[in-house]
């Protein structure tokens, strides 16, 4: 069974496009990355999945159930960490977590203490006294306390220091090992690269590409820089080259195609130095955005 499945999910805010024709299919046990710049439609997609907003057209199911009809049932098994965490200011952390836990079946008080320990969160503080990062920690504990089968993270690491980020990633990986599926939205590629198995790239409301993280990184894209006295970059204008630029004596470009063609081309010219390397996900990402 697919954990999340959307078909041509579309949301317009009046005339403004939120997302259009987003089709995703996420398997059980996956850590699925969802990357795109701010305003690309990541949060819109997530809010649709949580039925906080309703689609203009298209379908979405979670655990095989229609998100918009059975939202309240589905949410029993979803843990959600929003990008910005807002809670009832006047409550204490402990009260808020207890309140949140009261909506889920079973006793979760042990798990709350466990998670708060890991995230070094003081349960006795008042919400409105907390810093941004500490509020985020409350969000993490609140999102995970009921051992959800699906964890939805929307830019989860903003506000957390690197040490806490690591602890948080470990926590997510641990939940994943126990069987939880993770939907991880972010605009920071490094963290997606670290955690995810597959990734969807979203841009201006459209899914540009869904790929295995390895394929995406390999995808035959090579980053090439050639140092040469021949300053005519046009000699490298062959099929498969993109983003060509010339800085001083260096010609840089991306190459996607038969590497032999490129090599034979290079040997025809007098070059001082050649670097052919794997582009980072970041660079591939930039490429998709051109």
């Amino acid at each position, binding site marked *: 069974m697919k954990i999340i499945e959307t078909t041509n999910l579309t949301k317009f805010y009046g005339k403004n496009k939120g997302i259009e024709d987003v089709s995703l299919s996420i398997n059980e046990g996956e850590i699925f990355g969802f990357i795109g710049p701010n305003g690309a439609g990541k949060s819109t997609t997530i*809010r649709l999945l*949580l039925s*906080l*907003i*309703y689609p203009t057209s298209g379908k979405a199911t979670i655990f095989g159930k229609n998100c918009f009809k059975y939202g*309240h*049932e*589905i*949410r*029993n098994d*979803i843990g*959600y960490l*929003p990008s*910005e*965490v*807002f*809670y*009832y*200011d*006047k409550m204490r952390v402990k009260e808020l977590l207890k*309140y*949140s836990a*009261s*909506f*889920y079946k079973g006793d979760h008080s042990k798990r709350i203490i466990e998670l708060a320990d890991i995230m070094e969160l003081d349960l006795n503080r008042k919400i409105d006294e907390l810093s941004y990062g500490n509020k985020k920690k409350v969000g993490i504990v*609140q999102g995970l306390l009921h051992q959800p089968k699906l964890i939805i993270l929307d830019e989860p690491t903003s506000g957390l220091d690197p040490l806490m980020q690591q602890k948080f990633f470990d926590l997510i990986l641990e939940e994943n090992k126990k069987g939880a599926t993770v939907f991880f939205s972010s605009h920071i590629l490094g963290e997606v690269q670290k955690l995810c198995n597959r990734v969807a790239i979203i841009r201006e409301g459209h899914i540009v590409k869904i790929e295995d993280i390895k394929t995406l990184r390999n995808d035959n894209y090579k980053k090439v820089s050639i140092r040469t006295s021949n300053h005519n970059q046009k000699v490298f204008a062959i099929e498969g080259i993109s983003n060509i630029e010339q800085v001083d004596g260096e010609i840089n470009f991306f190459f996607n195609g038969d590497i032999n063609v490129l090599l034979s081309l290079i040997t025809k010219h007098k070059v001082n130095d050649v670097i052919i390397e794997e582009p980072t996900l970041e660079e591939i990402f930039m490429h998709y955005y051109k």
Partner: protein
Amino acid sequence: MNIILRELRASIKSMAIWCGVFTVLIFMYMSEFSAYANNEEMLAVLDGMPEAMLEAFQMNSFNLTTLTGFYGILFTYFILMLSIHAILKGNSIISKEERDRTVEFTLVLPIKRSKVVIGKLIAVIINCIIIDVFLYGIILFSIQSYLPEENFMEFLLLLFASTFIMQMLFLSLGIMFGCAMKQYKRSGYLGISIILISYVLSIVSGLSKKLEFLKYITPFKFFDTAVIKNEMALDWKYILISFTIIVICLTIGLITYKKRDLYI
């Protein structure tokens, strides 16, 4: 259940303030009443006032020098205050989630939106009842040193019954605005405007026979304190109208809230 308790806990402070305000008001008015009570000269002064003014402020129907008359007039204002409380509370208890951006927490919990609204509605109803009971207690305490007229206690209970119906009516309007409108600021303004317009209409309708039809439009004329005093009963016709409005408002609120995009 947890929603009701949380909302009640969150509104303890505002309830305490309302109770405090009523305590102060009652004692202020009672010290004023001590000057009026059975005072013949006062009656003479009142008789000398222009007819229209007396009519507008209902002083024609009430004898200010008796407890019945005094509270009959006071309650017009209490009902106004409690109606404002009810409509604002009804509106804000729904819209505050969007204002404070807590929707992304509350409505991601495994609970239907309609249950959230009903929980909140019950919390405000309890809130209103607590304030009413408190006000009733304070009034009983304040009249200890006077000998109430024969029908006063019955009259007072009828006043509270009409107050409660008005509270529920405006509460359901407030809930409807909070549920139906995405823009929480506008729904608050709309609530206050409706109250003020209805109140002004209720005063205007007393000024001239030609404007009497307004009494069907403004809820503040549904249970006219003067009529209650004379009839010693609430008009069933208006109880039914109020009940219908309440049911319609809550239904519209529940349906629209279930279907609309939350404002995040």
